[in-house]
């Protein structure tokens, strides 16, 4: 199971990284969301994987999984929603104002000269 978990995190990371490096806002947002999944899963995994051991103190139950990463990831999920929402609005605002959803400021391959 560890192998499946690790590979899933890896695949999400790779897909997220690839999409983040695209030149339009929408795929970048998708990429950020995928990266968020990957990061959250990775953080969650720092408590190691456990089946049928929820950290809820019930009578007669002795083994619990690590609650701390779960608490941290829970807020991380909500915060990543906030972040996604802001980024979506930014991209929407930029698209409406500039009529383009490109994310690169200057499209010419030549660099520099923005200062003059």
């Amino acid at each position: 199971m560890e192998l499946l978990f690790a590979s899933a995190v890896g695949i999400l990371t790779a897909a997220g990284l690839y999409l983040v490096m695209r030149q339009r806002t929408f795929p970048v947002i998708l990429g950020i969301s995928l990266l968020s999944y990957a990061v959250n899963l990775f953080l969650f995994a720092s408590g190691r994987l456990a089946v049928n051991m929820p950290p809820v103190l019930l009578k007669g139950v002795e083994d619990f999984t690590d609650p701390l990463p779960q608490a941290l990831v829970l807020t991380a999920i909500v915060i990543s929603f906030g972040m996604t929402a802001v980024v979506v609005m930014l991209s929407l605002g930029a698209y409406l104002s500039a009529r383009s959803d490109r994310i690169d400021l200057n499209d010419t391959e030549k660099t520099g000269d923005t200062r003059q």
Partner: protein
Amino acid sequence: MENAGVFLPVIAALPFLGALLPGIMIQAGRNASAAFAAAPTLLAFIMLIICTPSVLRGEVLQFQFEWLPALGLNVNFMLDGLGLLFAGLILGIGLLITLYARFYLSREDPMGQFYTYLLLFQGAMTGIVLSDNILLLLIFWELTSLSSFLLIGYWKHLPEGRQGARMALTVTGMGGLAMIAGMLILGDIAGSYDLSVILTRKEAIQSSPLYLPALLLILMGCFTKSAQFPFHFWLPHAMAAPTPVSAYLHSATMVKAGLFLMARMWPVLSGTPEWFYIVSTTGLITMVLAAVIALFKDDLKALLAFSTVSHLGLVTMLLGLGTNIAAVAAVFHILNHATFKAALFMTAGIIDHEAHTRDIKRLGGLRHLMPVTFVIATLGALSMAGFPLLSGFLSKEMMLEQTVHTVWAGPDYAVPILATLGALFSAAYSLRYIFHVFGGEVRDDYPSKPHDPAFGMWAGPALLIAIAILIGILPAVAEPLVKISAYAVTGGNLPYFHLKIWHGLTPALFMSVIALTGGAGLLVLHRPLERVWNAVPRPEAKVIFDALVGAATKAAHWLTDTLHNGRMSRYAFVFALTVLGAGAFAWLGGEIGPRTRALQPAPLAVLVGWILLVTCTTVMVSYHRHRFLALVLMGVIGLTVSLGFVYLSAPDLALTQISVEVVTIILLLLALNFLPKRTPVDSSLARRVRDGALAITGGLAVAGLSFAMLTRDFALPTISDYHLVNSYKGGGGTNVVNVILVDFRGFDTFGEIIVLGIAALVIFALTRSVLDGPGGRWLAGWGPDADEAGDRHPVMMVIATRVMMPIALMVGAYIFLRGHNMPGGGFIAGLIVAIALVMQYMASGFAWAEARQRIRYHAMIATGVLIASATGVGAWFNGRPFLTSDFGYVTLPPLEKFELATAMLFDTGVFLTVVGAVMLALDSLSRMARRAGETVNIHPMDINLGRNGKKD
């Protein structure tokens, strides 16, 4: 004097405290401004004099105050002989300069500013010489660089002033940075940053392998500050400053800071071959080279500037020799040079002030017009040349005597010959200052008819020259001061000596005679020599410096433009590459322990989930140009992740993830309504391959790291057990995750709901600004680019959501209430309620729903945060820290016994903030839709008959 040490911080602080006064008092006139600049200086000087007797008795006054003991940074001051000599020079000459500047500055110059800068500089300088802690010393050291920048660039309208200030700051600032590194190494070797401790660790420091790097870095700071070759070039350019500044900073004080530090560190750093060869060679080269250049400068201040460089080289060489008696000569010459050179600078300023030029070629014959200035300048120049019965003669004689005993890498005649050559050129330019400026016939083409200035202007230089004559005739006057400061420099190994004029027919006397007669000879031959000098091409330091600065600027621009060129996709690439590189570095540099955890079996269901996730992700990346498809697949991925949380014992996470997923997808769908539905091909195949390769490498790295982590136990003892044990006892809840959120780590959660609220407000503000800008106008003429559904608000959906609304709200309340003990809580309940509300919005339109909504979302966010903080503050009334929770059990018939915890109240705050934030974000998007022409329906359901997508 008992406990005179308490004066030390006051002496250092007075100029800083007083710095504001002249700036304010300039409103009351120039005299008031000058008086208030002089007052703190005078007060500090008096305190120094009070301290003097005990220092002369051999005491070292100290004051200690711990500032940041963890860093070894203490506000420790000390006053020994060396500090006394320098502090006396700084404050004494400072007073004279204040007087002089009052008459020198014209009515157009902002005098208050000048005195403020001057006092800041004076405070920094005093701080350097009184510091007992090298970190404190470094702070003052940098302050002198900064305040001298302000002073050199005082005449802001002069380009030379600005350039000179910049150059001085660059060179001395660079040296200062090197010195910080050197001092830190030194402190590390010595085990303390206190000078009084460091000075006792000679053996440890000199035997350390880090001695040479520390020495080089510290000397870099000293050489740049004291304008030693090859860093000498900034000093002549700093002469664009007003003359009082040149006289104060560039002859008497700041440029001597480097010498001071070399003298201060002399007991522990000197005596090694490295010290000898680096310091004495640099000093010797500087002394001779600058003396030669000075002879051919026509600008009075340039002549004096190069002569200062030359004399600084002389002292550096003496310190470099490493013998105790040479250190005595060095200290003595510091004193003498400060007096005669400050006086000479002031006379140059007087000439400039009166004749409106300082070009030697346009002057001459001034002895008739300015007799007082003539006498002062002549005596000063003769002292500089090393004429008997003047102070310069004594220390120069001692210097020459020392060179005779110096063997430099084999031959024993090289150093004396070069030193004599330096003295010879020194005599020549000193005599030129007298004969070419004051000698000759009175001319009638001065830019302004010169005459002697007001008394206030020549009083200062006259006093300094009187001191020079006094020491020259009665050297015993200066002996106690020289002795006590040389005692400090040599670390107590003071040789037996007497300062006297006549030593007999020594080699030094012959060298002096050669230098003086040779100097006179050179002056006679000045005209032909000058022609030769001007014909020979020489490297111009400013050109080289500008080229270096230009190259550095260009390189910096290149680097910035390459990394930061306005293309975000490049930033993402650079960022990913950097993170990957850092990860690889950490991986290769660290060690990984053996595998300690056995792999767990994977049942079929898990495998199916994995296949689903992998397939969706792969398809999504391959078809990401079809945006709707990509969004649907993303929903599936999110769902799979939630299922994963369910399986892996994280019910809270599963609930959160699934509700966030719903809200996110709705948000993205709303946004996609306006955005293009497809992503065009922008990048070349090569670039996609490059990005893909990086992405796959990153994915492999993360997968490898995750696997390595999952198959190993914790490296350090975990703190999770504490939470498990104390969750019920201390927090009163059995759902440990929720207890951590609202109790153990409540402060984190508090911060996070604030962030969430801010994010929602940012979204609201963004929407407003977009709608008010060109985007809003464009949106007003926007038409849907795809066919719209005929029934915008279908009957089925409207009825279903209406029925579900109370049920959804009840589920939300249930999830919220049980959160403390079972999976659930404020975050999840907030999301569920938000979804319930959004359903109404979707069914009947945002505007329709909004019109029936009584609470504003802004207020909801604010109330949530306020409730959370009020709960936190409540703990104060119990005498506990912020956010400490409390709980108890209450029995209310006919209900079962139930628990009330303040954490519940906190969770209510979380709940309200989450609902408000989510709804505000979605509501903002709906504003855009309304601007785009979406009409508000009157009835909860309606049918749009114009279904071809065109508007009326």
